[in-house]
């Protein structure tokens, strides 16, 4: 199962002066859920559109299932399912007809198609809305329809471009679980999002993109190991002296201590029992403190440390 599903080599895409994708390299193995993570405007959707041969690109090579991808590579296209960022369905067709239409672009066998459409409806939980027109659907349901239209033909490679934008948490969970289910059934998935929690939750491998460049690639764990920060301890405390800060800094693994707004923040670069050591020190000084919080680094921290800016702005 370790063959390559998608290979992107040195991809460059320019919009006049703007360099949207800058020498991007990606390799996605079959059976993976591959996350493309990046802030708005980082080039995720452009990359996807290039992979799909919707956009022409200035440089680079793209292979899907080890064959070069072209606008008329219909054998490859047959294996791909796409869920676009914007909802793309016919206003004039009902839920069921829409799914049937798009499934029909891939599957010619009538019997099989009927079965697939039914499965897609079940899968996205749209059973009660078969005869609804898209106009009458709520935002979340519309997203689900959008997904159903993309996956009904059981593609081997599914590309989802921010499928959860503007979806309530309940629908979102359902969508995420669905994606994992599709993956268990054997589909390779490319998933773009700017919600790092989502990506962290479902993706087996992640590429972080910023300004059209891939700045880091690997599993969530691997990515987190890229940075120094391993543990963040915050403590609500009324006041500490400069000496205390120096003393705390001297503790093993601690590499940064800051105090601001009655909040002490201690960053550690590994090791264990860091919290115990800190608390021991504070108790020894007889400080009284309130809230204690110890957190492991998130992908946001990874992004922050590599690019120097927050992922979400």
């Amino acid at each position, binding site marked *: 199962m370790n063959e390559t599903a998608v290979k992107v080599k040195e991809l460059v895409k320019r*919009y006049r002066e703007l360099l949207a994708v800058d020498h991007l390299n990606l390799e996605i193995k079959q059976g993976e859920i591959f996350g493309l993570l990046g802030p708005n405007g980082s080039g995720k959707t452009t990359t996807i*559109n290039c992979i*799909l*041969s*919707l*956009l*022409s690109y200035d440089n680079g090579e793209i292979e899907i299932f080890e064959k070069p991808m*072209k*606008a*008329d590579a*219909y*054998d*490859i*296209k*047959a294996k*791909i399912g*796409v869920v*676009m960022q*914007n*909802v*793309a*369905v*016919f206003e*004039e*067709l009902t839920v069921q*007809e829409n799914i049937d*239409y*798009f499934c*029909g*672009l*891939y599957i010619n066998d009538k019997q099989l198609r009927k079965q697939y459409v039914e499965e897609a409806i079940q899968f996205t939980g749209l059973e009660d809305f078969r005869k609804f027109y898209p106009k009458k659907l709520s935002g979340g349901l519309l997203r689900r329809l959008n997904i159903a*239209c*993309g996956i009904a033909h059981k593609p081997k490679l599914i590309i989802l471009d921010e499928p959860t934008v503007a979806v309530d948490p309940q629908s979102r969970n359902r969508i995420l679980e669905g994606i994992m289910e599709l993956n268990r059934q054997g589909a390779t998935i490319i998933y773009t999002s700017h919600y790092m929690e989502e990506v962290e939750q479902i993706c087996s491998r992640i590429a972080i993109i910023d300004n059209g460049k891939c700045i880091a690639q690997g599993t969530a764990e691997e990515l987190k190991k890229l940075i120094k920060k391993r543990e963040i301890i915050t403590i609500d405390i009324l006041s500490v002296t400069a000496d205390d800060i120096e003393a705390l800094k001297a503790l093993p693994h601690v590499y940064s201590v800051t105090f601001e707004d009655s909040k002490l923040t201690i960053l550690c670069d590994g090791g264990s029992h860091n919290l115990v050591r800190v608390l021991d020190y504070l108790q020894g000084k007889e400080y009284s403190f309130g809230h204690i919080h110890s957190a492991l680094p998130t992908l946001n921290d990874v992004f922050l440390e590599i690019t120097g800016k927050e992922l979400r702005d």
Partner: protein
Amino acid sequence: MLRTMIFSWKTLFRDKANTFWILLFPIILGSFFKIAFGNLGATENISTIPVAIVKSDSVYDEQLDNVITQLSTEKGGFLEASYCTEEEAKEQLKEKEIVGILHSGEMVRLSVSENMKEQSMQQSILKTFVDRYNMQVNALTELLPDHMEQYQEMIDALSAEITYNANESLGRHPDQSPYTQYFFNLLAMQCLFTAVGGVLVACHNQANLSELAKRITVAPTHKLIRIVPELLAVTIYEFVLNAVGFAYMAFILKIQLLDRLPFTVLTMFLGCFVGVSLGFFIGCFGHFDQTAKQGLVFAVTMPLCFLSGLMIGNMNILIENHLPIVNRLNPAALLTDSFYRLSQYEDLSRFYTNILTIIGFIILFCVTGFLMTRRKTYAQL
């Protein structure tokens, strides 16, 4: 293939507002045309003409009097004469109660009003009458002194009931109102307006024009397999709607459209097809949004319709007499001309040429449009 067509029809017919307006458009406009043209030509119909006669108290009065009495009382007479003085006559003319004043004399003189141009035909008929009368009087006056012996022959010649000049018409329906050509033009316009449907097909299949098209473009179906049935579906849809308008004109407005019906229907169908493919062609062109392209379609079809005589009826023949190539290439003119040929000509060779040209256009538009969308990746979405 059929599946794509069925889905196209579903999307088209469910857009009720558009369907409604496409359907209603020829019906309303056809009715307006009918109302406007229904009574046109009425002023040209020959009815009796009111005139005033001013006598000159001379020898010429009696002769004129005889003829006038004959023409205003006998069957087939066209005058409604009254006798009065010069002043009274002028007053009547000013009030538009009479069309002209006949002054008796050696030469009968006619006076008409400058402010009654709507009666110019009747004025002309009066003039003809006066001329004829003067001719007879003059000819006789000239000839009689020398040719008394042939007097009877001359009088016979003057009053002979002879048809010098027999009517032999050129067209199939010589009396078809020339305003029928406005309806031909309306049908042609209706056909070309289907271009908007063609734009829709283009937008459905070009990834840089709609979200839907992106999804459709990434599917493994060959473009040709998708576009051809969609074009056909749109054509048939528009054709069905247009056929309703056609039936309304033919059966309710009673416009003469029904002879050679199979040919007429064929023309309608090809008309819709050329319209749709024109729209498809324009739709495949450039990076404007759908609204702008629909505007463009309109901006292209309206002048074509104008050139074929939709607004000014004799535009068509003006071009035919001076720059016939335009009529051979303008789809609106080709359609109008085809309808006209069918209703007026025994010889249909020009009709066939028209139809072939239209088919040529269909192929040209479809093929270039298809070449433009095929294999395309976009620089910008």
